[in-house]
C-alpha cells in the first residue's frame, strides 16, 4: 500500500509537471492570461472606485481606459499558416499602438463548426474579460457572431472572410487574388511539363476564387499550361495534404501551388525535386530547394486601424476588402529559382494590379471550364459575383466535389 501511495504521488507530480509544460504553450497562446486577467480585475476595481468618486465621469473614464480585444483562432497561433498570419498582425498592431493601451485576449483552437464553443468563447471574452472589440478569424464563426452581436450592442464585432453585418458587426477580408494571379505568372514561366498542380482545401468560393485567379495568371503568360486541382477536404491534416500533393506529382505536375494551412505540400514537392508556391507565410527557409514565392497576408495595419477606431469612438461598418495597394496583401520576394522573365513580368504588372485590384484579375472575357462565357469583354466580375464563385475558369482540370 505504501508503494502505491508513493507511486500515486509521483504520478500526480508527473502530470502536474506535464500540464505545466503544456501550459508553456498556453502562455504563448494567451499572452500571460493569468496576469492579464489579474490586470483586468484590478481594472474593474479601478472602475468601481472611479464610479464611487465621480459617477458622471465614469463613462469617459471607461472610454479612455485600456481596450480589451478578444480574438478567436481556428487553429494554433503557430500553425505556420492562416492563424499565425493573423496572430502576427495583432502582435504588430499592439506594438504600434502600445501595450499600455490595448490588451489581447486570444483563444486558439476554437472550432468554427461548433456554434456552442464559439458562443462560449465570445461570451467569456465579453463578460469575464471585459472585451470591447472581438475579432473572429474564420468563416464559420459568422452566424454565431451575428446572433451575439445583438446581445451586446456596446461591443464591436469584426468577422473575417464572411458577408454578414449588423449594427455593431463588421466584416473584413482582402483581395489575395491579386497576389495569387502574380504567383500564377511565376508558375506559368517555371513549368516545363505545362502541368501545374493546386492542392485545395475545402470547396468553398474563397478557395475556388484563389485557384481561378492563379490559373488566370498562369494562362496570361502560358496559354498551353493547365492547372490540375485536387481537394484534400481539410484545412489542416499534414498526412492528407502530403498525399494530395503526391497525387498531383504522380500525374506529372512540376510546379505545385496550394491553399492549405500547413507547408506539407511544399515539402512533398521538394522531396520529388519539383517546385512549389506557398501561402500565408514565407517558406524560403523551410523548403529552400523548391520555394518560388507565396501570396502573403499582412493584417497589422487593418487591426491597428480598427483598434484605434474603437478607442476614438469612430468605429464604423466598412466591409473592408483591401489589396496590395492597402498593404494587406503582398507577393513574397521571388527566390533565385524563379526565371528572370517571370521576375520581369511580375515587376511590370505589380503596380497595375495594385491600382486596379481584383477588377484586373477577373476582367472579361472570362470562360468557365466548359467554355461558357461568365464575363463579357470590357467588364469585370462584381464583388458579389466573386464572393459567390462556384465554377472553375478555363484551364483548370478537376471538379468541384458535390454532396
Amino acid at each position: 500500500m505504501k508503494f502505491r501511495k508513493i507511486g500515486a504521488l509521483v504520478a500526480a507530480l508527473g502530470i502536474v509537471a506535464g500540464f505545466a509544460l503544456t501550459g508553456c504553450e498556453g502562455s504563448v497562446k494567451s499572452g500571460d492570461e493569468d496576469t492579464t486577467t489579474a490586470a483586468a480585475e484590478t481594472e474593474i476595481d479601478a472602475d468601481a472606485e472611479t464610479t464611487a468618486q465621480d459617477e458622471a465621469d465614469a463613462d469617459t473614464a471607461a472610454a479612455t481606459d485600456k481596450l480589451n480585444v478578444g480574438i478567436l483562432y481556428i487553429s494554433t497561433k503557430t500553425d505556420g499558416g492562416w492563424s499565425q498570419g493573423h496572430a502576427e498582425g495583432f502582435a504588430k498592431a499592439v506594438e504600434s499602438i502600445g501595450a499600455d493601451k490595448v490588451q489581447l485576449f486570444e483563444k486558439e483552437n476554437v472550432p468554427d463548426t461548433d456554434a456552442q464553443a464559439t458562443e462560449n468563447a465570445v461570451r467569456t471574452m465579453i463578460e469575464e474579460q471585459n472585451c470591447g472589440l472581438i475579432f473572429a478569424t474564420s468563416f464559420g464563426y459568422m452566424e454565431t457572431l451575428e446572433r451575439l452581436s445583438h446581445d451586446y450592442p456596446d461591443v464591436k464585432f469584426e468577422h473575417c472572410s464572411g458577408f454578414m453585418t449588423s449594427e455593431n458587426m463588421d466584416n473584413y477580408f482582402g483581395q489575395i487574388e491579386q497576389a495569387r494571379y502574380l504567383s500564377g505568372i511565376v508558375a506559368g514561366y517555371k513549368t516545363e511539363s505545362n502541368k501545374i498542380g493546386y492542392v485545395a482545401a475545402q470547396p468553398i468560393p474563397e478557395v475556388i476564387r484563389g485557384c481561378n485567379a492563379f490559373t488566370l495568371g498562369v494562362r496570361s503568360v502560358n496559354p498551353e499550361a493547365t492547372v490540375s486541382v485536387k481537394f484534400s477536404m481539410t484545412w489542416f491534416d499534414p498526412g492528407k495534404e502530403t498525399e494530395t500533393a503526391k497525387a498531383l506529382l504522380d500525374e506529372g505536375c512540376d510546379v505545385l501551388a496550394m491553399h492549405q494551412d500547413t507547408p506539407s505540400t511544399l515539402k512533398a514537392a521538394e522531396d520529388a525535386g519539383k517546385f512549389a508556391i506557398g501561402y500565408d507565410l514565407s517558406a524560403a527557409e523551410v523548403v529552400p530547394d523548391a520555394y518560388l514565392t507565396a501570396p502573403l497576408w499582412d493584417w497589422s495595419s487593418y487591426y491597428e486601424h480598427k483598434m484605434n477606431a474603437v478607442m476614438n469612438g469612430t468605429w464604423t461598418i466598412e466591409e473592408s476588402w483591401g489589396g496590395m495597394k492597402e498593404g494587406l496583401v503582398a507577393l513574397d520576394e521571388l527566390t533565385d529559382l524563379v526565371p528572370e522573365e517571370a521576375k520581369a513580368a511580375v515587376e511590370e504588372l505589380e503596380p497595375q494590379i495594385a491600382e486596379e485590384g481584383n477588377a484586373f484579375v477577373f476582367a472579361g472575357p472570362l470562360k468557365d471550364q466548359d467554355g461558357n462565357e461568365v464575363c463579357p469583354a470590357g467588364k469585370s466580375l462584381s464583388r458579389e459575383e466573386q464572393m459567390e464563385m462556384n465554377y472553375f475558369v478555363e484551364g483548370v482540370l478537376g471538379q468541384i466535389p458535390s454532396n
Partner: protein
Amino acid sequence: MNSVSLSIALLLASGIRISTPLILGALGETVTERAGHLNLGVEGMMMLGGALAYTVALHTESVILALLGGMLGAMFGSLVYAFLTVALRANQTVTGLALTTFGVGLGNTIGKLGNGANVPSAVTQFFGKGPLTLNLDGIENKPVIGPVLTFINEAILKHNIFVYLAIILAIILYIFLFKTRAGLHLRAVGESPAAADASGINVNRVKYTGILIGGALAGLAGAYYPLAHIGTWTDNITGGRGWIVVALVIFVRWHPIKAIFGSFLFGLLDIIGLRLPTLFPGVAGLAIFSEYAFNMYPYIMTIIVLIASYIRGRKGWMGPAALGHSYFREER
C-alpha cells in the same frame, strides 16, 4: 506498362503510405484492448511519439535513436495511463480522453521547439529508400512479366522500411497473441481477470505489459509522420488519426492480421477521392464516389461490423469481455 495500370499501382502505393501508421496504431490498441484496457489516448500517444522522434532525430541524426525516442515518448503516456487505470483503477474512458488532451498539448509543445526545421537528411534518406525495390532494367519491356513486375514494384515494393516493419510486427503480434503462452495469458486477462488470477497469472503485470506495448506501437505510428511521411514537424501532425485507430480496432475485431487489411481499406478510402476522378473521369460526378462519401465510409463500415456482430448474438464475439472494467481482486 500502360498509364492506367501505372495509375492504379500509384493509387495502391498512396493507400499503403497513408495506412502504415494506422496499422501500427491499431496493433498497439489491439494488444491493449486484448488485455482488457480501452485506451482512448491513442491520438495523444501518437503525438507524443511523433514529437519525441522528431526532436531526437533533429539532435542526434540517428534513425535508431529517433525511433526509440518516439516509442519511449508514447510509452511515457501509456505508463501514466497504466498507473491510473491498473493500480488506481481510474475510469478508463476518462483517463484515455485525458491522455489525448495531455499528449496532443505536450506533443505540440515539444515539436514546436524544433521551429519547423526539416528532419536531417541522414534520417530522411534512410526512410526515402525502398529496401525491397526491384531493379527492373532489361526486364521492363518483356511481355507479361515486365508489366506485372513493374506493377508490383510501383505498388508494393517501393516503400520505406516502416511499411514492412508494420507488416512484420503484425505477424509477430499474431503469433504472440494466439500461439504463445504469454499471449494466452494476455487474452485471458482481457476476457476474465478473475479466472486468470485464480490460475496463477499475475494480472497487473500482464496489464502493464499490454498497455506499454500499445504505447510503444502508437509511438512508432506517430514517428512515421515526421520521419518518413512529411519530413518535418507541424502542429497536430497526426491529423486526428488516433481516433480512426480506435474505430479500426473494432472494425478488425481485435485481430493483428486483419488490422493490416482493415488499415489499408481505411487508408485507401482516405485518399481514393484524390486519384479516382483522374483514373475514371466518368465516376467523378456520382454521389457515392464524392469526397464527402469517401470520408464517411470508414465509420459506416465500422457501424455495420458492430451491428453484424451484435446480430450474430452469442456466437458473435463482441471483443474482450472485461474490456473497460477495472479488476478488483476481492470483488465477487
